[in-house]
């Protein structure tokens, strides 16, 4: 691992060690979060304003990332798109993982008919193809941001549930669970205090993975025209709009793709390189 000596020493003092890859991934994510929060104050041009007479314009001093298929500033559109991509995905992944993990732990601890019922129901949900499910929901209730968040969350709950349940079942067989049960503890304590701390690492890794899936699915839905509606656009929608620029090598199609890649790869790298607790602290 690449450890800078500075962060190494500081890490030891805190009892944790972070490595360079993890830190730089965190930096990229932090950058996008800042962009998402302050985008309206950062954009040089309005997202709907046509500022270039040419379409698929190249990078220039005025239009940093060139212009899109209507001659709008792509830099501004990417900054604003970060709000949608990040916000919708984050909300959806939080709901999916919270619900899935809570249900999974409950099913593992309670067992019996509750477990069977939940597992079969979520398996059934899982068997519906995700894109198709999205299409049906959008066709039924129309495309709005809450509907998008809800749809994405429901699509990813069964996976989070299965994952958490499999982990919890293993923890559930340990003696400390027997001790807690025989102490007379109730379900909320058992799942929150005894199981959750033991499965947190893998659950976070799963959350990161699921975040990436949701970003990609959202981009996919937007690509089909079912996602965020014009004139606003998330990164996936930007790629779709400007796909015609691909033969010209227009920055309008390449840069949104890079934005998606930078975010998803960073999330994965961060989760693979989370700071580890140092057990040997008798140093110094």
């Amino acid at each position, binding site marked *: 691992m690449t450890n800078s000596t500075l962060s190494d020493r500081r890490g030891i003092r805190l009892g944790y060690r972070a490595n360079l890859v993890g830190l730089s991934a965190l930096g990229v994510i932090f950058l996008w979060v800042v962009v998402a929060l302050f985008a309206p104050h950062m954009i040089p041009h309005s997202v709907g304003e046509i500022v270039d007479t040419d379409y698929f314009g190249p990078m220039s001093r005025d239009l940093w990332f060139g212009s899109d298929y209507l001659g709008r500033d792509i830099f501004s559109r990417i900054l604003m798109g970060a709000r949608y991509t990040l916000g919708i995905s984050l909300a959806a992944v939080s709901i999916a993982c919270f619900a899935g993990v809570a249900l999974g732990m409950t099913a593992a601890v309670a067992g019996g008919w509750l477990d069977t019922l939940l597992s079969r129901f979520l398996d059934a949900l899982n068997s519906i193809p995700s894109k198709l499910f999205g299409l049906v929901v959008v066709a039924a209730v129309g495309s709005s941001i809450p509907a998008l968040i809800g749809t994405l969350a429901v699509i990813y709950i069964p996976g989070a549930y299965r994952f958490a349940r499999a982990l919890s079942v293993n923890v559930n067989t340990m003696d400390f669970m*027997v*001790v807690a049960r*025989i*102490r*007379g503890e109730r379900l909320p304590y058992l799942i929150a*205090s005894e199981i959750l701390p*033991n499965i*947190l690492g893998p659950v976070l890794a799963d959350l990161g993975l699921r975040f990436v899936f949701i970003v990609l699915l959202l981009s996919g839905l937007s690509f089909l025209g079912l996602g965020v509606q014009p004139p606003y656009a998330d990164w996936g929608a930007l790629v779709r709009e400007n796909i015609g620029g691909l033969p010209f090598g227009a920055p309008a199609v390449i840069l949104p793709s890079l934005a998606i890649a930078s975010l998803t790869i960073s999330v994965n790298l961060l989760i693979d390189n989370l700071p580890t607790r140092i*057990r040997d602290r008798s140093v110094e």
Partner: protein
Amino acid sequence: MTRNLVEIRNLKVEATTDSGRQIEIIKDVSLDIAEGEIVALIGESGSGKTTIAMTLLGYARQGCRITGGEVRVDGIDMVSLSESERSHLRGTTVAYVPQSAAAAFNPAITIMDQVIEVARIHGLMTAGEARAKAISLFRGLSLPEPETIGSRYPHQVSGGQLQRLAAAMALIGQPKIIIFDEPTTALDVTTQVEVLRAFKAVTTQHQIAGVYVSHDLAVVAQIADGIVVLRNGEIQEAGSTSKILEDARHPYTRELLAAFRPKAQERPPESEEATKQALLLVNELTVGYGSRAGSGEPLVSAVKSMSLRLDRGRNLGIIGESGCGKSTLARAIAGILPTHAGDIMFNGLELGRAGRSRTRDELRQIQIVFQHADTALNPAKSVEDILGRPLTFYHGMKGKARDARIGELLDLVRLPKSIRHRRPGELSGGQKQRVNFARALAAEPTLILCDEITSALDTVVAAAVIQLLKDLQRELGLSYIFISHDLSVVQAICDEIIVMHRGQKVEEIAPARLKAPEHPYSRLLFSSVPKLDPAWLDTLHQDAEQVRTYCHN
């Protein structure tokens, strides 16, 4: 005297911790093993005994490095060899018998294929020859049905058999030296006798030298010619078996020997005056596992019509081999397993069949302490949280009062207060078991069920834990039910002992009569406990008929 087969000179092994610090775990160790000689490495966990044994294979565990010295096996220095050269010698010159054969065998491959694998890898003989050799080894290790046992899968044979099969696997390459890494620690005493006999017979027959890693002096006394006592990666004392046993010089060796001779329970006479008051009465208890058929009978009854009585302030020991139902009995008393028939009276009141139907106060009064502190303590929580929860849960303690009580509990079990922020993974085995016990004490129970709590500990540490239990009993007026397969532990602390076999009570013994148990099974069990006398195994005569009746090894 022939030349030495193994010569270890100034061996140093270092480990790197996760903060990058270097620790010397083996400090300048030198030892010799002559041809055909068996040397025992003895010491507590963390003393480096397995690490030294592994260097004979040229192997150091992950994160460890051999940093100095040489390990000459049959004239070749294992340290300076390349990995591929070492693998040529492994299995043919040096072989290894692991502690847990159950974990070392691949459950998906037949035993025979695994045993002859060494011969196949090194191209020593044809498959047919290897099979014939394996069968003769099976016979030599007195395994049942030597012709056909090889075609079974590992889960189809017993633990003792698997351990001998692991030895057969090690022997097939005709090594000059075998490393036995605590091969009998996980076995029952009666099985251990069989396994030790088999090991002794084959090593003598094939003139094989051996390194026997163990923390049990009595076992070592039976099989080893010489003993090396280790502590903190240094040799404390080395010498012939008889010399170490009779004339130990080093204080640590003496401590080890003393721990092996437990003092019998000494009761102050005052307990006689106290009127006998039954704390726990178990009447015709039947507990089982499996789905209940229409009749309501459990599929497998682990405990059948068991009755027992425990008086307040007294201790009851329950001994028996693995699978005899002793843990099931404890779990039923604690309410973990619902009982099928019979009743449990506690303090004159009948307890519910399962923990769910008992009141919080009834649950608080009976606490159970499990064998493996590793799994009984939540690895993700600090000692403070682990001990604090029963305080909050049963006694509603918060804030300062809770903090103070945690401090007191740590004091009670003789642990430093500084460990309260640590997690179980950062504690030693003995410390973990103390925390485990402190959690039970936090509930302020009247009865503590101790399920094999010293089995996973080293002799010296176990003796200290037993002493602690005795002290606490005096201070807090507790009663214990002590479940163990180790007779010496039970003898040290219990007023009464129940011998269990196949779910039933075989005999009830008071320590006064302990010297002469009457039931043949009790006699067999007691006679199988190894003694420090090196001639014990050779002079031990057990009725083969009885062994067959009562043991399933």
